[in-house]
């Protein structure tokens, strides 16, 4: 994420296939199986530069497994995954994935290191990749990253066990942003937050994405989040990505699960809320 990249506006989502340069994540023919249970089979997905892509699907359709495959935590049984033009699947040794410094990951529970303070948590990736940064600068970076995620400054000295669930998520986000990544992976960032907190978190992600020019891979069940901040939504079902597009595009499709997902009682409420909100801003 550099200024020159920020200055180029994010590619407008179009129906045409993205050109190779715009494609930050390219998944082809992915297959994941646990024993005899096939999670993914021949799954394809493209994530374009500068977009927020939401990944939805019923429980057990392998949303988290897809994310773990992309970030190299789960070795797929078949298929190729390229991130920033580098293959993840060809690498067998964890240490060889050099592009790790280009992405940040927020796990569901925050996954903060419980024996370190919030500031130390944020400093971990910085120390790992850039040992020449001085202690003072490290402390300052941790401080402003924590402030960027909306936590108060004194939270830096707290331990994860002293934080609430929502604060832990923000601290996890601060750690994910520590290296100024181009790519941000978020696993259910708003799950377990109150509606006000969840809406604030949505705006936080959108704001950071616009300011920092991030590409965001977002797993969520939160229909409001999908409406509010996602440029495109990928639907996981039947072991594949069955559709990718904006919500109106998805609604035009005649797939029973998509229809039920977006047109169920909760889906309708979220759509109505989104329409009201956009009318107010218009």
């Amino acid at each position, binding site marked *: 994420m550099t200024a020159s990249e920020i200055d180029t506006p994010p590619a407008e989502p179009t129906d045409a296939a993205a050109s190779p340069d715009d494609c930050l994540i390219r998944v082809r023919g992915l297959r994941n199986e646990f024993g005899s249970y096939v999670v993914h089979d021949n799954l394809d997905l493209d994530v374009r530069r500068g977009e927020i892509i939401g990944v939805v699907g019923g429980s057990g359709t392998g949303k988290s497994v897809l994310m773990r495959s992309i970030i190299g935590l789960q070795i797929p049984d078949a298929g190729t995954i390229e991130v920033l033009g580098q293959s993840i699947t060809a690498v067998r040794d964890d240490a060889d994935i050099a592009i790790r410094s280009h992405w940040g990951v927020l796990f569901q529970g925050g996954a903060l290191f419980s024996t370190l303070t919030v500031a130390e948590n944020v400093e971990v990736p*910085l120390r790992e990749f850039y040992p020449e940064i001085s202690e003072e600068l490290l402390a300052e970076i941790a*401080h402003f990253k924590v402030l960027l995620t909306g936590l108060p400054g004194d939270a830096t000295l707290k331990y994860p066990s002293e934080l609430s669930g929502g604060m832990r998520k923000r601290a996890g986000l601060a750690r994910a942003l520590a290296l*100024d990544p181009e790519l941000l992976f978020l696993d259910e960032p708003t799950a377990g937050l109150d509606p006000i907190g969840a809406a604030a978190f949505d705006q936080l992600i959108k704001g950071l994405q616009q*300011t920092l020019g991030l590409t965001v891979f977002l797993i969520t069940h939160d229909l409001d989040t999908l409406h509010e901040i996602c440029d495109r939504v990928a639907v996981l079902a039947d072991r594949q990505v069955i559709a990718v597009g904006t919500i109106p595009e998805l609604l035009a499709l005649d797939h029973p699960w998509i229809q039920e997902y977006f047109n169920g009682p909760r889906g309708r409420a979220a759509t109505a809320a989104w329409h009201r909100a956009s009318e107010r801003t218009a």
Partner: protein
Amino acid sequence: MSTKPDFTLTPGEGGDTLVLTGAMLVSTLGALDVRLRAITTPIAQIDLAGVDAIDTVGAWICCRLSRDTGAAIVHAGDGAQRLIDALHRVDDGHEAQTVRLLPVWLRVPANTGDTVVGLLSGAVRVLGFVGQMVIAAGTLLRHPSRIRGKALTHQMELVGVNALGIIGLMSFLVGIVIAQQGAVELQQFGAEVYTINLVGRLTLRELGILMTAIMVAGRSGSAFAAELGTMKLTEEVDAMRTIGVAPMEALVLPRVVATVVMMPLLGVYSAVMGIIGGAFLGQVSLGIPFFTFLTRIRLVVPTYDVWVGLIKGPVFGLIVALAGCYQGMQVKANAEEVGTRTTAAVVFAIFTVIVLDAFFAVFFTEVGWG
């Protein structure tokens, strides 16, 4: 690759102009930041015209310089300006807080004090824990239908049956060693035959139960602490409470009772394996036939030696299980605590078992079971 960032100072009216060039990125800034901090002359302007790439860390350094010196930032690109604005918005003007460690001459007494206070309050908590356990046991005795038979038998299997292999092997080998070493010494007096007395009395009275207790502390006591500690961390214990299942009844008592019951059994088993080991060595290298060795044991070992071992068994079992369960249930904060608590459980259990064993030795001699 991005170019290395650098700076030049151009003197001007009212202060210098700091001209930054190159890529101001987290990956390249480490050395530059140290040099920028060394600048002492006043700065009036920060010129970013020569910066070809910038990220939040680069923007932060500009922000900090401008805040600390009052300098104006000029010629920032759109992206750089957006980052700097975002940082200005969130910057609360406070310095980054770091944990300040006390100087060593204060830290040592402080830690010592903490430890002493911790020991005292720990003793009170142990007492409370034992009390809770006794109450839970009383409740279960009045309502026997609530006794968790399945959990109890499962723990008995884990603590007792699954330990048979390793305890058997260990005792067999120790039996061989005692017989071997004893025989070497006793041979000097022509008294090898007393090797049988040595092996029989030592294993039944002392070593069988003591080594079993140490092995169980390492195998099961540590497992109790780690299991319960992890369950505390993942809020499983809280979940149990809310469902109306008392953790004392469901988690602690089955483990304690299983260990108390299994310990004397394992102790006797260990003693038997030790005697077999001694008899094996007698057969192989001392010329005492295997079964003669076993028959002699019956004649030279007084019955009260067996009782001594059997009496110590449940006491040691209680200590090992209590230490494990208590430490496990004390875990509150983090993963590291599970580790330290588990260590504490094992160390405390082994230490206490050895100290008590010494007391038992004196006691039984005094009452005439020498």
